[in-house]
């Protein structure tokens, strides 16, 4: 168990356990996630990294039979507290999924979905928000002339950046990305990675990735999961040059996984 101490902590996880029915998927995870940094979660598939990611915005609750105990604090607020409203929580945390999942609506309506949900219907305001977020997601120039076009007509990489824009439109502080580039070609992937680099100026980003090089390229911190446990976490540089655990080294050097 490694706890990385940083100058401050955005998300503090303590003794987190998660069970699917009788099967334990996460055991005793404790971790601190630094604000305005990129934290990469790596590990072989089925190691619990995606499950872990979803505990941060309580998306696991959508699955029946899930039991979670332990503590997750964001800005020192316990998000598993009974008093916490999960909808309010999710408004403050953006999530990007493995497979891009734009709504079958126009590009504009995709981005405007979140603001509209929050009660913004003024066309001008929406237009402003859409433009700003699309610019932030580095896709404005590609779509500015056909905002009315169906989002499904975009390429995979564009769709994924649109999804990022959609998440940014509700102005979250944290972005959770679940293998956002795994379905994309190298050029589209590079664009996403570039974007992540830009975004970390303003957002706390947690990214699950399969791709070791990607973790090395985009992240400031890396956490290695194996069999539902957090094996090791440190600055990415340390993790990739001098991991303390044998398992981490084996995985990073490609000996298994």
């Amino acid at each position: 168990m490694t706890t990385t101490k940083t100058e401050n902590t955005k998300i503090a996880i303590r003794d987190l356990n998660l069970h699917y029915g009788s099967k334990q998927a996460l055991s005793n995870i404790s971790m601190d996630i630094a604000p305005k940094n990129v934290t990469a979660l790596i590990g072989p598939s089925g190691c619990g990294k995606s499950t872990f990611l979803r505990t941060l915005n309580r998306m696991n609750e959508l699955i029946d039979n899930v039991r979670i105990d332990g503590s997750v604090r964001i800005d020192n607020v316990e998000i598993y507290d009974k008093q916490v409203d999960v909808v309010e929580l999710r408004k403050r945390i953006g999530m990007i999924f493995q497979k891009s999942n734009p709504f079958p609506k126009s590009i504009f309506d995709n981005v405007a979905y979140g603001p509209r949900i929050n009660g913004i219907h003024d066309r001008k305001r929406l237009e402003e928000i859409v433009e700003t977020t699309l610019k932030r997601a580095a896709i404005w120039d590609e779509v500015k002339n056909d905002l009315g076009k169906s989002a499904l007509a975009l390429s995979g990489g564009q769709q994924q950046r649109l999804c990022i824009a959609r998440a940014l439109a509700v102005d979250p502080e944290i972005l959770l990305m679940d293998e956002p580039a795994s379905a994309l070609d190298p050029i589209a992937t590079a664009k996403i990675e570039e974007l992540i680099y830009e975004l970390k100026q303003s957002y706390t980003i947690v990214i699950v990735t399969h791709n070791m090089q990607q973790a090395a390229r985009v992240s400031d911190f890396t956490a290695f999961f194996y069999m539902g446990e957090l094996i090791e976490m440190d600055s990415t540089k340390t993790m990739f040059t001098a991991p303390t655990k044998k398992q981490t080294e084996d995985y990073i050097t490609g000996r298994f996984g």
Partner: protein
Amino acid sequence: MNQTPPVSMNFMREDRKDPAPPSLTGNTGGMSGAGNGNVTGFTTQGLRRRFRWDEFLAEKLITVVAFISLAAIVMIFVFVFREALPIFFQPEKEETAVVESAEEETYGEEYLGEAHRARSEEDREASRAETAGSEGRATLSNLAGTRWQPVSAVPQYGILPLVVGSLKVTLLSILIASPVAILAALFTASFAPRWAKEVLKPAIEILAGFPSVVIGFFALVVLASLLQNLFGYEYRLNAFVGGLAMALAVIPIIYTVAEDALTAVPRYMSEASLALGASKWQTALFVTLPAATPGVFAAVLLGFGRAFGETMIVLMATGNAAMLSLNFLEPVRTMSATIGAEMAEVVFGDTHYTVLFLLGAILFLFTFLLNAAAEVFIRQRLLKRFRGL
């Protein structure tokens, strides 16, 4: 960056108020704060659980409506049986038998003609004898009787002829429909080239979409005369015509469920057989068909249930004379047709009304049991498909 101890809460909150995304500050109020209504970062206050009226109402309303559709369904059960119940609690009425038999009722089915008239003389005799000591009310013994004459002066409510009538037509239709439908299903599942399937499937869909009154009309106007000319039997409308017409309504059900069962047989089974050198037809007959037996059996059960409850076809094509006979070439009156023909003319709440509801309750129970039995044999998915859902 590494060794700094965790900072205090206050500081973190302060920190968070830092100008958010630089590029967003351009349109202040556009995004932060205003952009999201009351989103104010991660504070206990901001995240406090709130009560959402619309959410609450939507959930309650949806649950209530779901409950209503359940209640409606339960109510069908309750009301059909409720109206049938008085039959079992009727006080014994003292009533001297009126020996003079009344006019035979016709319910306006002119077309059934000869059969009915031919029988009526004979009936009158029998009726006189039978009713000599009993009363015209539906005691249980009366129900079990062999005469159905609800509108005569001495009403007789023997449902036996109706039950036998229903069974006759149903059995006949199953005997005709099953071999055709199952063979056709086997053909589709095992032998049919692509083009044949593309002809067959829509044809079945069309057949399944025929309103039963259309099939009844066809049987009454075309089929009945055709068959009579062909075979030269006495009554134009009879159990045979009804059964044949009913087969048309039942074939799509049996076909669809049987075909589903046949195609659901795992590939490896037929492939194993083919690999052993068995020919296509041997595989179909000795591997696929036996493996799909439960589904095929269920198909027949479902067809049986459908035929038993079907009303319009029998109402139009069977002649509707309530005679107790096992001859398939004589007119019959089924339970469903009896309800359909007589319910509009009864006095609410009287014995006749109650007995008709009893017939309905029997239909309900019987089809329910058949469906339940079929469900044992096939999975839900198949059942849905059969219901055209």
